[in-house]
């Protein structure tokens, strides 16, 4: 029932509309600057909301625990992915490492969508999860590079550039920056900007997911690089990683909403920030593989199946 409810939300239906339009080869398209603008908006909005919530709720030791757990997951999950990509999908070391980096990292859009769905099911995740997400974005890149290349991975000159790309990545900076601003201003000073960042949120998310549906389906149609084994891993990895995330959440004693959000961060794969970093650090890896797996398989799977599933499971697993 709750799962069905989630699928009938306008946010998801716009994603489906985009996917169907692309599948039917309609020329519907969202201008690229609008897509980028909406993603900036969504990051600023969730950063702010998270910060304001933490300003209200106060700092708790849980915040540090979950941050540590999130970063550990981001470092460690690529190992599992790498093993399966090598063993099951028969990818070479380079491409397996590149893909693994994406699965250790997170998808901001998936997080935003699950938060929205959880909030509507009265299981709003804790505000600090935004910061946890920002912290989980980049450790996976390091593991992925080491797996792909071994220690001497990146040449001296480009190492600083890569570290900058990874640590000062626009989305990390905006998410953490907006989180800190939310923390600093608190609820009262947030009032004047809440019409844009709260009231407008779900509606704009619809437009963004319309575009994501178009993009994901177009990539699926174009993806020659994808074998069925890779496609299968695009479904298996989020299930495995999500289960691990849920287990960690249970160990930490998180509430259902916060735990579900952590599980979805584990389950999701990056397709915005990490591809840019990996293109720089592992230019020989094939972008067709990592983009298609994370964006065209795992992302729709998480939106259409992962989120409803999680909304059913989380209250059961996390008391």
């Amino acid at each position, binding site marked *: 029932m709750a799962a069905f409810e989630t699928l009938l939300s306008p946010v998801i239906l716009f994603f489906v509309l985009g996917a169907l339009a692309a599948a039917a080869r309609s020329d519907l*398209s*969202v201008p*690229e*600057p609008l*897509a*980028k603008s909406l*993603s900036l908006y969504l990051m600023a909005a969730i950063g702010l909301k998270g910060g304001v919530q933490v300003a209200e709720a106060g700092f708790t030791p849980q915040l540090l625990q979950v941050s540590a757990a999130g970063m550990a997951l981001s470092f460690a999950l690529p190992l599992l992915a790498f093993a399966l990509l090598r063993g099951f999908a028969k990818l070479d070391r380079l491409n397996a490492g590149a893909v693994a980096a994406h699965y250790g990292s997170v998808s901001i859009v998936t997080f935003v969508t699950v938060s929205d769905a959880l909030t509507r099911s009265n299981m709003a995740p804790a505000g600090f999860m935004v910061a946890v997400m920002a912290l989980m974005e980049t450790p996976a890149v390091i593991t992925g590079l080491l797996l792909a290349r071994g220690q001497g991975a990146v040449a001296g000159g*480009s190492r600083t*550039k890569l570290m900058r*790309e990874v640590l000062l990545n626009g989305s990390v900076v905006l998410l953490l920056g907006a989180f800190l601003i939310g923390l600093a201003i608190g609820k009262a000073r947030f009032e004047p900007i809440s019409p844009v960042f709260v009231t407008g949120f779900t509606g704009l998310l619809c437009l963004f997911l319309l*575009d*994501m549906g*178009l*993009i*994901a389906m*177009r*990539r699926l149609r*174009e*993806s*020659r*690089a994808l074998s069925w084994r890779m496609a299968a891993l695009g479904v298996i990895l989020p299930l495995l990683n999500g289960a691990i995330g849920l287990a960690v959440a249970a160990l930490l004693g998180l509430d259902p909403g916060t735990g579900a959000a952590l599980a979805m961060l584990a389950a999701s794969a990056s*397709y*915005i920030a990490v*591809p*840019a*970093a990996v*293109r*720089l650090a592992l*230019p*020989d890896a*094939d*972008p*067709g593989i990592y*983009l298609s797996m994370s*964006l065209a398989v795992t992302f729709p799977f998480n939106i259409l199946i992962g989120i409803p599933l999680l909304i059913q499971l989380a209250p059961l697993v996390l008391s």
Partner: protein
Amino acid sequence: MIQTFTRQRIDILVDAPLCEWLTEQAVAAGILHHSILPVESGHGRAGAWRDEGFGTVPKRMFLALTNEAKVGALLDRIAPDIERYGLVVAIQDVRVMRGERF
């Protein structure tokens, strides 16, 4: 008629994330001036792409007017990476004004 000089024009199609790397190589080869033009879509070995903001590694067009020696120096620097970075390089003779600038 105004005097012109023969120089070279080098166009390089390059992945957006590698643009900074390329301009550094150009500077190291003595090519201090360049322009970057947007590319909207394309078709290559990896299939079709379109810059929709996400889901592809978009391309840019690097363009510099310079002299033969510097073009040679740049080619020498990027030669080992042309294949793996998927650079598409085109060099032509052009006539320019203010020859001393290039």
